[in-house]
């Protein structure tokens, strides 16, 4: 297992290399002049800019040379310049990444908390009314198109009930807290600004719930089935024979073992959350890299799409790697026999 993990870690650079190559090839296969993928139309008749871009990206060179240049730029953190913002894509992404991470983290917390709770109670009260209702709730979450459920929730909770504020990370007139982590919730907490913290959380609540709900089903289903599996094991009978109350049996014994397979699903969940975040951000005008990617896709801002894709794939790969390591760490049988 240890060997497997080392192999996985060594594999990441190769996969990233592959990802970057795919992104390069796609940027080359855009229709027409590759220049049009790098220079916005309105700047096309400015010869200075055109020649500067041509030199930077080696557009006069043959494809293999362009590829080397692309990779060299990428390694130096240069993903090109966005047509929309006219800023380096890397800087755009760096500015917007914290917003996405805050949303995805909150959604992950909500999704796994609800998912584990529902899975746990479903396994404990199997085939009861609760079990069926909870599974229905979870299934609905993973079947709803998030760009629609977000819209409906926004309509219900913001427009009709007025429980939550509208879109965005903050009210229109508020200024964000001093940048420390980039997570508004943590930064406003560190600044001791309670009003701002409340505002941040109330803005975060609805999109994070909508996004988290979409993974509740995956987590709940796995927790339930692996708990039921664990509950049928001999060591559960041993625990009961020791006089352990059902709560202790469930949490200390069954859940401890059931969590090991659940860990593996977290990486998988993360993929769902990235996909969902793109759409959720678009609905909630959340200024993260998801809404950036959607805006870029709508206006065919190729450097921006390529940059987000590479960053997203990197995050995805690292999440899966972290899952594998966590899995090995949680399972004492693997840790020792490594």
């Amino acid at each position: 297992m240890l060997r497997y993990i080392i192999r996985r870690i060594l594999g990441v650079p190769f996969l990233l290399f592959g990802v970057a190559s795919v992104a390069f090839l796609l940027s080359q296969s855009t229709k027409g002049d590759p220049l049009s993928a790098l220079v916005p139309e309105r700047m096309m008749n400015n010869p200075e800019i055109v020649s500067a871009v041509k030199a930077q990206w080696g557009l006069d060179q043959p494809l293999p040379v362009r590829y080397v240049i692309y990779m060299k730029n990428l390694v130096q953190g240069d993903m090109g310049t966005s047509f929309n913002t006219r800023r380096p894509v890397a800087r755009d992404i760096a500015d917007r990444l914290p917003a996405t991470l805050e949303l995805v983290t909150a959604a992950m917390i909500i999704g796994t908390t609800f998912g584990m709770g529902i899975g746990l109670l479903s396994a404990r009260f199997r085939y009861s009314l609760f079990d069926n209702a909870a599974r229905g709730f979870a299934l609905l979450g993973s079947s709803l198109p998030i760009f629609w459920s977000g819209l409906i929730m926004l309509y219900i909770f913001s427009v009709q009930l007025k429980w939550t504020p509208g879109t965005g990370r903050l009210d229109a007139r508020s200024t964000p807290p001093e940048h420390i982590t980039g997570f508004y919730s943590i930064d406003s907490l560190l600044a001791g600004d309670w009003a701002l913290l409340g505002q941040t959380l109330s803005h975060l609540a609805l999109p994070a719930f909508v996004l988290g709900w979409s993974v509740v089903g995956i987590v709940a289903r796995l927790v339930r089935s692996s708990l039921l599996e664990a509950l049928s094991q001999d060591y559960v009978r041993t625990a009961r024979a020791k006089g352990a109350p059902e709560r202790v049996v469930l949490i200390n014994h069954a859940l401890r073992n059931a969590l090991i397979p659940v860990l593996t699903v977290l990486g998988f969940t993360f993929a769902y959350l990235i996909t969902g975040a793109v759409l959720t951000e678009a609905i909630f005008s959340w200024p993260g890299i998801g809404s950036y990617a959607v805006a870029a896709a709508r206006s065919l801002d190729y450097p921006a799409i390529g940059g987000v894709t590479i960053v997203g794939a990197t995050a995805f790969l690292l999440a899966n790697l972290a899952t594998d390591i966590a899995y090995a760490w949680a399972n004492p049988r693997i840790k020792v026999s490594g």
Partner: protein
Amino acid sequence: MASTSPRARMRALSSGRALFGRLPLTGKIGVLILLFWAITVVSVQFWPLVDPLMMAGRRLQPPSGAHWLGTDALGRDVFSRTLHGAAYTIPVAVMVVVFAVVIGSALGAIAGYFGGWFDAVIMRTADVTLSFPPILLAMTVAAALGPGLPNAGLAMIIVWWPIYARLMRAQVLEVRTREHVEAAIAGGAGRGRVLVVHILPLCWTPTLINATMDFGQVALLAASLSFIGLGAVPPSPEWGSMISEGASKFYSWWIAFGPGMAILSVVLATSFLGDGLRDIFDRRGPQ
């Protein structure tokens, strides 16, 4: 499959009916929902509905007797548009699943059976493809190819084929070691013949179950791409782009309601059906 003898057709029909009978209630509901949409796709243009592309009444009307799901920002009937939308999303999803299954399975089967450098190339390509979050890869490809439903479909095939390649490869590797295969090889059957006649027929079950489960997800991704603006282009009543229009006319919730429910019904139906099929076929491993 394309058998012309009436008896074979009868047999296929009755085995289909028997299969339906063994599905749990939710699976049966799933089949009926999918059947409804299939019928809608092929026959919707003959239904007595108002033209989905023409103004049918006043703009932004809430649901009423005349317009069951209201009207949109251009005064078009949302109910009619929702039903017509099936003819966009569902055929695309079908095509994507069919091509992804065929291409992925073929590559996976050859990779698994022959191994060597071909296997290495195919599987590393699959690894890289699966390293992308699906929507980002689909967005990048669709953007590179330019907007439009066919291009979005192509993008989704690129996203989905590796899943089936991996699945089929694992199946082939497993079946390859069975005795009847070794016997066939010992008996002098050609490599290609062994693969097609003795191995592949035993490998389909997991692929078909997965394809059923994926169908809803593919439909969802197709709608997502249209929602972003990379799939169907206006004014076509594709579900995702209808929801996108609804999002810009936020207070008229009904514009997005019909297409949203339609997508939900397709996704739920396929996961019901997929679960049911898995319960029937997948009692611990294929066959």
